[in-house]
């Protein structure tokens, strides 16, 4: 179906609710003195939007707003993922000391606006919408990153993020302008048709794609567009780091899949995607994926700051996720979607423990974790161990299952070398994850190390994140089923 503006509104409730919440938050912030209600209000808006999103499952797929955005299972999946991420981050923010220094109204407004951008990143089928959504996420991310007052690290991180993001998205629209010039349209479907006639100059096409990739790549954090991420992750307030590392990363992957798969390739036999001839993406992505995971893991090795370590580990994980793209078939894409959900849960969990520790000690370096389990924080330490081992991909945790599917896809696609590199990388990564676990459990606290207490708000959240990490490691059937279903693109 191809709906006009008014007809589309019916299928647009999640976005409308979210935008309404954003506007109401601005007004509430001006009217209400007690700023504590803002977080629950924001969460309520997200929940309503989530409800509306789930309502949309089962309705017909199609284009909305004159083919600007598309409604299909793929976009719904990423809406659910973004909403889950933002809900958990709101919860994390409530218990975080750092965030209390920030103006609450602005904080939650911008956070929700960013989520709205992620919605569009997953659902846009038009170069203009893709650019707008990407910029909406980027601009809000810059603000969130720099939102700590008079904080050296926060401001510096925001500046770097801004410049880097500006250049990346600038290059992206420059590349897009060439695609537009070659095809005469901004619409993905038209672009696909024109490009498949194969008249476009291949080298020009390649360069245009390269430029576009810089924009997507910087959102999905892969080498060589990753340089901003360690600095930004370290400088930003921790909940925002968590948000960027899962939400923005997932949205980057979403926009990339949306552009590369339905737009510039077409579904062939047996779930394999065929690219436009002459654009050797698999080779290119293969290299990028390997370099990304290797670089991320190697850099994380000697890292002393846990937040920064998680940033590098995030780069490495972007590399793993990219493996699913390399194989160019639906098995790989499904594995990617599965991994995104799993990564969301375990990575948010790890950052939550970082918040708990920094709340109590004000520190983020690995020394602050010394003997954590014996400093009144046995539960967070245990959960952290679960999250980290899951990130490392040890069975029987969710991370293992996720990696298993990715590896299975890669091996099935006969990219053996990539599989070997990924496995070696997993081994390397085990070292630095295990080092933190060792510090928490096997080292004994010095007398100067503070007790780490948990606030009652954080404890349930910790369990909410830790339990699925274990649970999906043992019984992933339903989740896998769900992600499988989510790989439905609407293509005409």
């Amino acid at each position, binding site marked *: 179906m191809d709906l006009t503006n008014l007809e589309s509104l019916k299928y647009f409730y999640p976005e409308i609710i979210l935008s309404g919440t954003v506007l109401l938050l601005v007004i509430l912030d001006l009217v209400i003195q007690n700023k504590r209600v803002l977080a629950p209000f924001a969460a309520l808006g997200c929940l309503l939007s989530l409800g509306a999103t789930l309502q949309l499952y089962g309705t017909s797929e199609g284009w909305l707003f004159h083919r600007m955005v598309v409604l299909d299972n793929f976009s719904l999946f990423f809406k659910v993922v973004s909403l889950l991420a933002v809900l958990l981050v709101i919860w994390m923010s409530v218990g975080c000391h750092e965030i209390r220094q920030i103006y609450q109204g602005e904080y939650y407004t911008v956070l929700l606006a960013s989520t709205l951008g992620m919605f569009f990143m997953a659902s846009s089928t038009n170069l203009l919408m893709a650019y707008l959504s990407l910029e909406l996420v980027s601009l809000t991310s810059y603000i969130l990153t720099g939102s700590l007052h008079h904080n050296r690290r926060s401001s510096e991180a925001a500046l770097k993020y801004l410049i*880097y993001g500006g*250049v990346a998205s600038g290059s992206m629209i420059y590349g897009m302008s060439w695609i537009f010039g070659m095809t005469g349209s901004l619409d993905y479907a038209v672009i696909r048709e024109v490009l498949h006639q194969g008249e476009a100059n291949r080298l020009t096409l390649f360069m245009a794609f390269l430029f576009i990739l*810089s924009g997507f790549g910087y959102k999905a954090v892969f080498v060589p567009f990753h*340089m901003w991420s360690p600095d930004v992750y370290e400088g930003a307030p921790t909940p925002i780091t968590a948000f960027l590392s899962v939400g923005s990363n997932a949205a980057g992957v979403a926009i990339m899949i949306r552009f590369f798969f339905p737009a510039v390739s077409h579904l062939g036999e047996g779930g394999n995607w065929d690219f436009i001839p002459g654009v050797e993406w698999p080779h290119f992505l293969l290299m990028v994926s390997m370099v990304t995971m290797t670089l991320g893991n190697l*850099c994380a090795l*000697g890292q002393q700051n846990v937040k920064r370590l998680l940033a590098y580990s995030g780069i490495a994980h972007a590399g793993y996720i990219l493996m699913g793209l390399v194989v160019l078939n639906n*098995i790989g894409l499904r594995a990617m979607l599965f991994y995104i959900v799993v990564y969301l849960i375990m990575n948010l969990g790890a950052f939550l423990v970082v918040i708990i520790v920094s709340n109590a000690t004000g520190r983020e370096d690995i020394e602050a974790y010394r003997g954590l389990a014996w400093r009144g924080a046995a539960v967070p330490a245990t959960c952290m161990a679960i999250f980290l081992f899951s990130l490392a991909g040890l*069975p029987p945790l969710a991370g293992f299952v996720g990696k298993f599917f990715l590896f299975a896809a890669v091996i099935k696609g006969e990219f053996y070398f990539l599989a070997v590199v990924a496995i070696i990388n997993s081994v390397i990564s085990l070292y630095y994850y295990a080092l933190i676990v060792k510090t928490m459990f096997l080292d004994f606290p010095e007398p100067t190390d503070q007790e780490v207490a948990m606030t009652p708000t954080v404890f349930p959240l910790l369990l909410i994140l830790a339990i699925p990490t274990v649970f999906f490691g043992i*019984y992933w059937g339903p989740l896998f089923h769900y992600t499988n279903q989510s790989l439905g693109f609407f293509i005409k």
Partner: protein
Amino acid sequence: MDHPIQTDYLRWIVLLPLLGAGINGLLGAILQRQFGKRAISFVACTPVVISFLLSIWAFINLLALDPEKRFLIDSLYTWISLGSLNVTVAFWLDPLSVVMILVITGVGGLIHIYSIGYMQEDEAYWRYFAFLNLFTFAMLLLVTADNLLLMFIGWEGVGFCSYALIGFWYRDHVNTRAGNKAFIVNRVGDVGFLLGIFLIYWSLDKAGHGTVTFREIETFVPLIKDLEIWGIGVVTLATLFLFIGAMGKSAQIPLHVWLPDAMQGPTPVSALIHAATMVTAGVYMIARLNFLYSLAPSTLTVIATVGALTAFLSATIGLVQNDIKRVLAYSTVSQLGYMFLAMGAGAYSAGIFHLVTHAFFKACLFLSAGSVIQAMHHEQDMQKMGGLRWRLPYTHLTYLVAGIALAGIPPFAGFFSKDEILWKSFSHGLIFQWALGFAAAGLTAFYIFRQIFLVFYGSPRADPHTQSLVHESPQIMVLPLLILAFLSLIGGSLGVPEVLGGSNRIEHWFEPVFGSPGGHENAPVAMEILLMALSVGIGLFGITLAYLIYLRKTLVADTFSSLAAGVPYRLLFQKYYVDELYQFTFVRGTLFFSRVGAWIDQYIIDFIVDGSAKTTTFISWVNGLFDNYVVDWIVNKIADSTFGAGDKFRKIQTGNINSYLYVVLGAVVLAIIVKLRYSG
């Protein structure tokens, strides 16, 4: 193949211990504070006992069926459904696994009960029982799994519990170190195991029937019989990989180094995990996949050889150990070697038979040793014991019974099973392996009686204070000992060979799984009886020798050893330096990556100082030279270059935004250049 009979109570056999583990693990601290340790032990022991009763029920149900139809299955849910790969969580009972669960829940239950007394003083009582229950669950999962992946989960689960329990008293670094060692050595095995699984799945998938379920593998394995990669049969390769996994878990040379160190854990743990059950997982796995192994004769030869070598070499190491538990540890390694020898000879039922009897008498030995250790206030050095016979009457009795069983003297349990293995390997034509096993039988009798004499006989060598406090263990510990001793006495009746007028019931019981023995029926009966007499003879000889040296002292041990074999004695005492070799290569290499390596340096220095002070032998000098300059150099280079690369890469992150952008530009330009060259 007949469709197995669906049931729905098998799951409870497996899941009940998990329930116990869950309750104790999550609420244990509270329970212990509120209701005392009794509550904990109740929560922990009840599920295992119920599981045992259910296992007996299952066993009776199986008995009621025709031999050919003895399969019960209990499917829970579909676990993975990915393309051609369909894995269900299903528990499966056949004559083989039912024997295993009876042993696990039976011996395990006794050890649970024993632990109530043994761990009474420990603060972390609940943690101990939670892990013990979790272990029981994982082990049951391992043996009842109906597919390789589920088995692997159990495999890793038992491993995890093992590491956790080895390092149970984690405040002592020696213990955590031992746990680490077990962890790392087992990783080597696990890689093999996983590769084996993948290889089987991959080749079956190629043949159009990708599966990891045992029964389906059995059905489809003829399809891949002739498949080859790199000129080696896929089946051979897969079985070899799986065997590497078994070597790690079952501590076969050269992956045996972790087991003696694993004795750092509480003694009941050593009895349950590191003697009776977990370490036999490798044996079980091969027996489970017997249809696969039977297709790979060369793998079987490798297994038989490794098993025989292990049996022999670790028995020799056991000769000179002074720690009461280490002797038993090496003995376990050695007995596991026997089981593998049986597997290698294709005598699966003999191997499992030995597994069962070994579970009885070795658990009994360990628990008795635990009783001794507790009586002696945690003194484990046998040279400081002696004369405990009257002080610990029950323990002495059980130790003696189990010791005789181990030594292979009829009519105790060990005799029948061990002799079955030796006979099968001999009649299978594995003469060299048989000879090693035969020699090991003599050594076994010697070291176990050396131990009995040192501990229970002679004059007391402990200091007076300790002596005055020696006391027999409480009833709750003695009772399991007596039951196990009784089983060690009569366990052999399960498989009395036909030559001796028995009917070898256990072999017939296993026929649906392993097929009819056949083949050697026409072997001369006289030969069998002769060999039997010989092995009893060498056992008695070993006992006599031990008696002469350690009790009568007509042969003084030290002069004996220094005269007969000055260098060999030292070599044995240092366990052939295998540990050291390992430290310098695998373990060290891995630990360097995890930078836990600091302690090893200490170890090397100790070793060098120690070695040069006591003996300036050529061996240690060359050894040290080699290790320091070659192995160290290589290991250091790898570790350093990994870290170095990490440091270099991080230097790219200068913090300067311009340079970040340069990196991007550089990469893009590189991509274009590559593209231009690539498309000519």
